[in-house]
C-alpha cells in the first residue's frame, strides 16, 4: 500500500529545496510534513476555509486543493517567508497592531489573501476587502479587525 515516493523540488521562501513526498500528498501536507513549514495550516482540506492559502508563482492558492507533485519547480512563499531580514512586513505589522488575529490558525491564509488584494487594488474599499477575504474563514475575530488591518495598510499606501 505504501506509495512510491516522488522527489519534489521547489523554491521555498527564496531557497532551493527538495524533498521526497508521497504522491498522494496535498501540497499543504507536503509543505508541513516534508518541508517543515508548519505555518501553513490545514483547516478543512476541502478548499472551503482558506487556512492553507499560500503564494505559488506569485498567485495565491489554497494549497489543500493541489497535489504536491503538481507543484514541482514552483516558487512558493509561506508565512515563514513574509518577513524580510527579520522585519515584519507592513501587513504583518497592521495585523498585530489592529488585533486582527486571536488564535492565529486562519492568520497565515488571511495574510496571503490580504497581500494579494493590496497588490492588485490600491483603492480597495471595505466591501472589496470583505470580498477578498471571503474565501477565508475565521471563528475568533468576527473579521472586524482583519478588515481594519487591511484598510490601514491600503490607506498608508502612496496613491
Amino acid at each position: 500500500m505504501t506509495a512510491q515516493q516522488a522527489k519534489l523540488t521547489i523554491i521555498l521562501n527564496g531557497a532551493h529545496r527538495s524533498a521526497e513526498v508521497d504522491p498522494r500528498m496535498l501540497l499543504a501536507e507536503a509543505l508541513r510534513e516534508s518541508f517543515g513549514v508548519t505555518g501553513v495550516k490545514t483547516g478543512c482540506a476541502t478548499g472551503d476555509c482558506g487556512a492553507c492559502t499560500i503564494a505559488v508563482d506569485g498567485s495565491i492558492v489554497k494549497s489543500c486543493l493541489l497535489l504536491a507533485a503538481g507543484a514541482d519547480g514552483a516558487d512558493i512563499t509561506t508565512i515563514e517567508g513574509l518577513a524580510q531580514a527579520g522585519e515584519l512586513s507592513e501587513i504583518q505589522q497592521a495585523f498585530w497592531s489592529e488585533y486582527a488575529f486571536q488564535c492565529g490558525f486562519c492568520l497565515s491564509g488571511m495574510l496571503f489573501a490580504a497581500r494579494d488584494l493590496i497588490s492588485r487594488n490600491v483603492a480597495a474599499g471595505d466591501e472589496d476587502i470583505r470580498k477578498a477575504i471571503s474565501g477565508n474563514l475565521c471563528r475568533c475575530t468576527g473579521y472586524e479587525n482583519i478588515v481594519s488591518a487591511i484598510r490601514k495598510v491600503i490607506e498608508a499606501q502612496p496613491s
Partner: protein
Amino acid sequence: MPLSTNRALWSIMTIDQVTAPAESSDYVGARVRKHNGAAYLTGRVTYSADISLPNMAHAAIVRSPLAHARIVKIDTTVALAQPSVLAVLSGADAAKTSGPIPYLLDPAGLGGHSADVRCLAVDKVTYVGQPVVAVVASTPADAAAAARLIEVDYDELTPIFDAEAAMAEDAPLIYPDWHTNVMFAGTFGDDTFEETARSAPHLLHGELRIQRTTPSPMETRTYLADWNERAQQLNWYGTTQNPHPQRWVLATALGLTERQIHVVAPSAGGAFGLKMHGHPEEVLVSVLSQIVQRPVKWVESRSECLLAGGREQVHRFAVAYGDDGRVHALRDQMIADHGAVAAGAGWGMSFVAANSFPSGYDIQQCRVEYSIVVTNKPPSVGMKPFGKDAPVLVLERVMDLVAEATGLDPGVVRARNWIREDQFPYTTSAGLVIDSGNYHGLLTQALDRFGYQRRRDEQQVARSEGRCIGIGLGFEMLPEIADIPGSFVTAYDSATVRVDPSGQVTALTGVTSPGGGNDTAIAQIVADRIGVAPSDVAVVQGDTALCPYGTGNLSSRGIVVGGGAAALAADDVALKLRTIAAAMLEADLARVELRDGFARITTDHERAIPLAAVAHGAYTLGYILAAEMDAPLESTRVYKMPNVQQVPDAKGRLSTYTTFSNALHVCVVDVDTETGRVDILDHFCVHDCGTMINPLFVEGQLQGGVVMGIGAALSEEIRYDDRGAIRTDAFKRYLMPRAIDIPHLRIGHQVTRSPFSSLGAKGAGESGFAAAQASIVNAVNDALRPFKVGLNVLPLTPPRVLAAIREATRTAGAVG
C-alpha cells in the same frame, strides 16, 4: 552601589507589616497588542498538529455508518496484512487495557442516568460517527487507506432522532437499563404559574425551536500520545482546554497514576468549548501508543469535527403579564436533544440553560421544567456560551411578544422587567445570586448611540416604500466563573510568578488560553507589579509538568481567577524585589518602587538599580541584604472566588456562578421578501464585563461571539439524513458567516465592577453570541410584522423566511 549591612532594618520590618503597592495602571486597562504576536505572524507558534516526534505513527478511525446497531463481527484481516499497518484495534481489544472514560460531571451522581463511554464502541453503536475500530500505520494516508479495508457487520436496531418522540412511552430505548430515554430531568422555581396566571391581566404562549449547531474552531481536535514503556510514562500532547483535568481523565481511563502522565496543551487554534475533556480519541491514541510502542498521532478531519454539536432544544413558554408590560410569571418547558451519551460537558449545557432562567429579569415567579433526552445523534459537546444563550433567546422573544401585545416599545418593556441596580445582589428564582449590574445603563447608552428613535422613524418610511426593515434588541446576562461541586469546573485557579537571577520574569498559570488574549492580559497584570513591559514577561500555560494545578479555560475564567492568582503571586515577588532593593539603596521599603525595569526611590528616580541586579542580589547576597527573606524570587498563589454557595439554601438551590457579565445589542436588518435573504445593516452593542484588563481583547471576544451568534441566527445548522448520517459534513454545507455576510460591528463599553473578584473583572470569554442571536431573531420578526408572521424555528434561513412570508400571504389572501 553600596550594600546595606544595616541588620536592624530587617529585624524590624517583616513582610506582614508592609502594605503592597497600590495597583499601577500603566498596562492594566491599556489596549496592549498580543505580547507574542511576532511568533504568530511568522508561523513560529506551535499547535498540536505541528508536533512531530521521531518514529511517530498515525491513527485513522473507522466510524459507525449506522445510528443504532449491534456490532456482530469485525474483520480486520485485509487491513492487518498491509505492509505499513502496525495495529488494528477493536472496542473489545481496547477494553482489555482501558476502562470507561470518566465523566466531566456524571449525571447519575445527580439523580440522572449515565452509561459507560469507551474509546471504541463495545458491542453496540449509538450514533453515526461513533469510533468502532482504530488503525495505526506509518503514515496518515496508509492508516486512512487501511481503515477502508476493515469490514464491520452490524445488526441494525431501531434508531430515534427526535427528542420528543424519544420521550414517548413506546419509544425504542437506547440504553435499555435506564427504562427511559430521559437522561436528566428537573425543575427550577416554584410551581406557581397557574395560580399567578389566573389573576394576571394577560397571557401569551409561544414556542421556540433551536437548531443544533457546532463550535467548529478552525483547528480541529488533535492528540499525540507517546508511551514510554521503559519509564512507564505517558507524554500526551493535544488540543485540550483543561490540561490538569485531562491528566486525571487519562489516568482514570488507562489505569495509570496521574504522576505517570505528562499533558501538554500547545497553542490552541480556537476551542469554544469543543476541547473540554471527555472525547473518546483522547484515550484512544494513548492505548494505541501503548500497543505499538511508538508515538501515535491523530488529527481530526473537518467532517469528523462537524459531528460535534449541541444547543438543540425546544422551548414552550407561557407568560402572564400586565398592561404595563410587566411580566408577572413565566413558565418554560424545555426539551433538550442531547444525542447519545458522552463523558464530556455537553449535557451540563442544557442544565445550565434551565438554571439561567429568567436571564437578568426580575421575575420571581419563573418556573422551568426541563428534560435532557438521549437520541441516536452524535453526543452534545460543550459550546460557548454553555447553554446560557437559550434563556436569553426565550426571554428576549418574550419581551418582544409582550411589547407587541401591549403596544409598548421593546426597550420600555425590558426596562420595566430588568433587575434594578439597587436590587443587587439579587437571588433569581433558580437560586443564582447575581453580583451586580446596571442593565438600564446599557439601554440608555445603546439607544442613544444607536440613534434608536431615528431608526424607528426610518423604519416607518421604509415600510411605506414596501421595504422590510426590522429593528431588534437583545439583552444577555451570562453567569460566569462557575464552580460545580464534584467536577473540575472550579472558581479558583493558581499561578506562579518567578524572577530568575538574571531578572527575567516568567508567569506560569493553571489557566490556559483557547486563542484569545488571556496570556497577554496576564502579562500586563504581572508587568505592572514587577515594573517591566508585558513583552518582558514570558507566560507559560498548558503544561502539567511546569504549571501549577489549574482547571484551564472554560466559563470565562482566565482573567478573573488566572489573572487574580497571577496578581497575588506577582505582588509577593514584587515585595521581595523591593525588600532587596531597599537594602541595596539603603532606603525605606515604602519609598522603593519597581518601574521600567528598575527598582528606584519614589522621590528620586536617579537612585535606581536595574531589576537584574536586584534579582541577582536576591539569589546571591541573601544573608546580607535580607536574612529573613528566602530566595528564590518565586511565589505560587491561588485566587478563589469568595461567593460560591454550594450548600443548598432553604429551597434546595445552589449558586454555582460568581460573576455575571451582560450586554445589550441592537441591530437593523433588511429582509428581502423575494428571496428570503436577511441582510444585517447595522449592529451595535454595549457590553459590561466589569473591569477590562485589555479592552482590545474584550472587544475581540465580543466580535467573534457576535459573528457566531449571527451564524446561529441565520445560517448555521447541523442536519442529518433520515438514517442519522450528517449531511452538513463540510463548510460548503455548514454555513459559518464569512466576512461578506457581516456588517461593521460597533461596540460601547460600560464598566460595573464585580464586587467579589479582586480585579473587578467578570469574564468576557462567552460574550456576544446570545444577545446577537436574540437581537437578529427579534429584528427579523420585527421586519415581518406587516405580514403578521412569527418565525420561531431557527436558523432563519432564506427558505424558512420565504416559506413564512408565502404562507402568511396565502392565508391573508384566503381571508381577504
